[in-house]
């Protein structure tokens, strides 16, 4: 059982996760942001590995990815920046990105490095379950890395159950049809989708992401799921930040208070 699985066995509700893009706003902010998120009581953290063509992301994360790449972020550098992170951080950590940079880095080497550093899971939206099971799962399993899969309002019940069956961390519930990015609140239609999923009694915890931007969205998501993920809204805050530590603390306080 890794940190992520341990977290879900101990805490069942109101989980809060934050996504940020590594290398943004400045190249070497990675460890500072992770530590500040831990200090402010976030339950788990998604470190975005930037990609040149992020098709599942909206404008905010497209821009943060573009700037991070311009700043010089790449896979080897990210691992170097966080190689000692477990000396100060015990919060579960995931890497979220796209499959191509991982193929180029080498799948085995990637999983091995994640294991050595203490990365607990990965989220790769363009690696679908079928491909994962056929060609990737055995390597992720060998190094104890959870691979997190998405479900959406248009996923069939049968497919959701199949994804649940083959998942071992949590289920990432995409809140509505669309890419990442802040949307205005959580609609009634979305709430009924959340309720539908809750009634399926999945074996994995469910965390809602995409379009959750504030306290209200977080609380609504938590009514029918185990927690929520905030990404774009956090990145927008970072873009205007002059003091990362205190601004991050204030942002999280604003969600959780």
């Amino acid at each position, binding site marked *: 059982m890794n940190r992520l699985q341990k977290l879900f066995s101990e805490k069942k509700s109101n989980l809060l996760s934050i996504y940020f893009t590594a290398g943004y706003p400045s190249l070497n902010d990675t460890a500072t942001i992770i530590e500040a998120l831990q200090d402010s009581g976030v339950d788990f953290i998604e470190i975005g590995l930037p*990609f*040149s*063509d*992020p*098709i*599942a992301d*909206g*404008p905010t994360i*497209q*821009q943060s990815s*573009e700037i991070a*790449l311009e700043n010089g972020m*790449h*896979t*080897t550098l990210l691992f170097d920046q966080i190689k000692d992170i477990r000396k100060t951080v015990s919060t579960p950590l995931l890497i979220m990105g*796209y*499959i*191509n*940079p*991982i*193929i*180029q*880095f080498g799948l085995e080497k990637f999983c091995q490095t994640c294991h050595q550093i203490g990365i607990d899971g990965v989220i790769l*939206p*363009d*690696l*679908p379950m*079928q*491909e994962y099971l056929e060609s990737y799962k055995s390597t992720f399993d060998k190094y104890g890395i959870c691979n997190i*899969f*998405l*479900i*959406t309002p*248009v*996923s*069939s019940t049968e*497919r959701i159950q199949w994804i649940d069956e083959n998942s071992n961390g949590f289920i990432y519930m*995409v809140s509505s*049809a*669309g*890419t990442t990015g802040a949307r205005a609140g959580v609609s009634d239609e979305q709430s009924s989708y959340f309720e539908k999923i809750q009634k399926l009694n999945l074996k994995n915890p469910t965390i809602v992401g995409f379009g959750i931007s504030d306290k209200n969205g977080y609380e609504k998501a938590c009514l029918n799921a185990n927690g929520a993920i905030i990404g774009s809204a956090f990145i927008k805050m970072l873009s205007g930040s002059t003091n990362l530590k205190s601004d991050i603390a204030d942002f999280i306080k604003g969600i959780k208070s």
Partner: protein
Amino acid sequence: MTQYSVDERGYYGSFGGAYIPEMLYPNVEELRQKYLEIINDPSFKEELDQLLKDYVGRPTPLFLAQRLSAHYKTNIYLKREDLNHTGAHKINNTLGQIILAKRLGKTRIIAETGAGQHGVATATACALMGMQCIVYMGEIDIKRQAPNVYRMKLMGAEVRPATCGSKTLKDATNEAMRDWISNPVDTHYIIGSVVGPHPFPDMVARFQSVISEEMKWQLKEKTGNEDPTHIIACVGGGSNAAGAFYHYLNKPKVKLVAAEAAGQGISTGHSAATTFLGKTGVLHGSKTLLMQTDDGQITEPYSISAGLDYPGIGPIHAHLFETSRAQFIAITDQQALDAAVMLSRMEGIIPALETAHAVAALDYLELQESDVVVINLSGRGDKDLQTFINSGII
């Protein structure tokens, strides 16, 4: 025997697949389940064939280029896709896909375009069918290809700029995919080449296969043999090449030649020669050869011809390359320009700059007097007039 068509899992050898976010799964899965049934339906074939005949002007001629043949001391035929309505082969695919979209109950069409040829072909099909049409185009390409933007608008399409990344074709493709993610029910995405998640590469290849289907009987009529010795086509994503090769893939005696854009030269850093410079990776839903950094970031390709300016090739072509079924030749900007002038002056046919790469490949082949070479003349060169003028060759 090596298989060149797509397998049940959506792969050509080790290339292809459907690497898509879960949000796109229902759309792509619906297509996968239904596309063969729909396009093999006799009433579908009838509707498409009628349009290809009466609206597009098919069959396109197979023309014996006598002066060009004499120059190369062989027999060279030109498959005149440039004579299609809208001036290129692209319309074969957009008409097929729009009829398919209607039968799937879709009411809204999206497409990506680089130079604007596929955008124009999509806008044309949408105007014909009375469907809403949104074309994504890189902000830089919108400026570079203004006449095509106005053609699309004139036919009622909305042209939306892709303002992120390199602001060219790959970014327009990203934007189209994001649109499809956000509009999963009413929208069909008409991809313009043999790229994207399965079943798009196979579907687009099937719609373009009309090119080699006609070649077979036209060659039989003209030479007594339906098989040529060589087929030459240019490859960006590779839709015209896929169509020209399609019915000859399993005839090893027919040499398949793919002309890629070397740009300013393969090793100059300004090139789009994917098989020479690319590595296996995943982009826009399929595993294929891609131009990228060591770190897996997709790089911006360069070619004088915007239609070859794509950082990957369709998975079918990656497979043809890997199995050596097709010979890949990299043609520089200058070679393409020279070939365009040659064809213009020898045959009175101004080819698109993309197509000129295929013509230039003739110089690399050791042709015999008895050989029968077909060049797929994929598009006409009117759109490239300004580039010809700027290059100083006129």
